[in-house]
């Protein structure tokens, strides 16, 4: 017990890192997801094909593998690409090192992953709005953009809050995978303390409880938001 209390500050620091990377991942994921989600709904074949490829790849493969591709695979690509340019075109060496900082790899892999899930959330939210409303808007002379902005998105926005909250919780737990590339978040911090103290049971149990406290708090907050929004939602659904 004393051990857990002693290591608590370190674990909380780790939890802070966990929260930080999750926030960054989901925030960038929302931007990527909005683009990819709209892309999937685009009438232009190529746009919707590319968006679908992106979404399918990142939802259909394990996050751990995606992390490895970014952290280990991408530097290799940079390195070999540079070698190729130097050998064949006589270009000078630009990159001294092709190693990617852990934080960058962590951000890139989790954001790309989150963006794919968020894209599906936005797509479903937009598609849940009755087509008849868009037709009514168009029949009043509104452009496609205006009907998106004034009719579809304001209603879709309310509907995506709960699934976005779930995505945030899922991502918060999944960032534990970043421990394998040495990103010092909560799980990695637990590993380090456990290795130093030989008390895995207490340490990992404390780690689990901290995750639980975070996810529990967030899910209550999302419930609260959902209730707030429902009272303001004048749709019959």
């Amino acid at each position, binding site marked *: 017990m004393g051990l857990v209390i002693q290591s608590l500050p370190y674990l909380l620091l780790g939890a802070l890192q966990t929260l930080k990377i999750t926030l960054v991942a989901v925030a960038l994921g929302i931007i990527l997801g909005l683009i990819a989600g709209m892309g999937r709904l685009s009438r232009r074949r190529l746009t919707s094909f590319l968006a679908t490829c992106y979404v399918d790849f990142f939802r259909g493969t394990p996050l751990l593998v995606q992390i490895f591709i970014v952290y280990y695979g991408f530097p290799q690509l940079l390195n070999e690409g540079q070698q190729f340019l130097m050998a064949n075109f006589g270009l000078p060496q630009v990159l001294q090192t092709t190693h990617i900082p852990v934080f960058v790899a962590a951000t890139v892999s989790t954001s790309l992953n989150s963006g794919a899930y968020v894209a599906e959330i936005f797509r479903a939210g937009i598609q849940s709005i009755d087509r008849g409303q868009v037709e*009514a808007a168009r029949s009043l002379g509104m*452009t496609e953009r205006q009907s998106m902005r004034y*009719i579809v998105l304001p*209603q879709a926005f309310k509907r995506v809050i709960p699934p976005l909250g779930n995505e945030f919780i899922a991502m918060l737990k999944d960032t534990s995978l970043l421990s394998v590339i040495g990103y010092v978040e909560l799980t990695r911090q637990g590993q380090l303390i456990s290795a130093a103290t030989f008390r895995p049971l207490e340490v990992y149990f404390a780690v689990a409880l901290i995750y639980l406290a975070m996810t529990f708090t967030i899910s209550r907050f999302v419930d609260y938001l959902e209730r707030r929004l429902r009272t303001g939602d*004048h749709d019959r659904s």
Partner: protein
Amino acid sequence: MTMIEVRNLHKSFGPLEVLRGINCTIAAREVVVVIGPSGSGKSTFLRCLNLLERPTKGEVIIDGISLTDPRTDINAVRQEVGMVFQRFNLFPHKTVLENITLAPIKVRRLPAARAEQQALELLTRVGLRDKADSYPEQLSGGQQQRVAIARALAMQPKVMLFDEPTSALDPEMVGEVLAVMKDLAREGMTMVVVTHEMGFAREVGDRVLFMDEGLIVEEGTPDQIFNNCRNPRTKSFLSKIL
């Protein structure tokens, strides 16, 4: 004066040919009622008149402007053609007043105060002045449909299209919506109305078009169609609904 001119209008959905060559001319201030069996293409015909569906072939001219000409600004033309749907299609996240003012403000660039004043006048006209701040879900079906009519009128269209405006209503609410439409007809609005309300067709219809399998099979005054129709398909249809 001709308000709507339709020439050899065709519309296919993939292999399915829904409209197979419609020709008709509708004068300004005329009220035309379209009847016909389910699937005969009535809705599709109406939706081609404001380009919610793009015709596959043929021409639609409204007030001298060809909708089928690729150079025509569709959004500009749609402002002149109001449409009322079977399922109302009000915007659920906006109040009754906002439903009516949105397009005039965003599309016609009317100042908000002017748009609100106009909306309140229209609401008075359809008998719903006291519902301005309600949300659509708080209204009955008949009230929602009257708001939908006011919303379309707020764009000051030259033509109003109605697609079975009373079919989704409980019987006791049909009358209040028809009353608003009758007023509109008497004020001289050019109207194309798909409906099975024969009383309405008789009372305010100038002309009835009977559609079957993507064609206008017979047309005439309400009296001609309802009492003396010549085509056997019209006869058999009317015997089912009258």
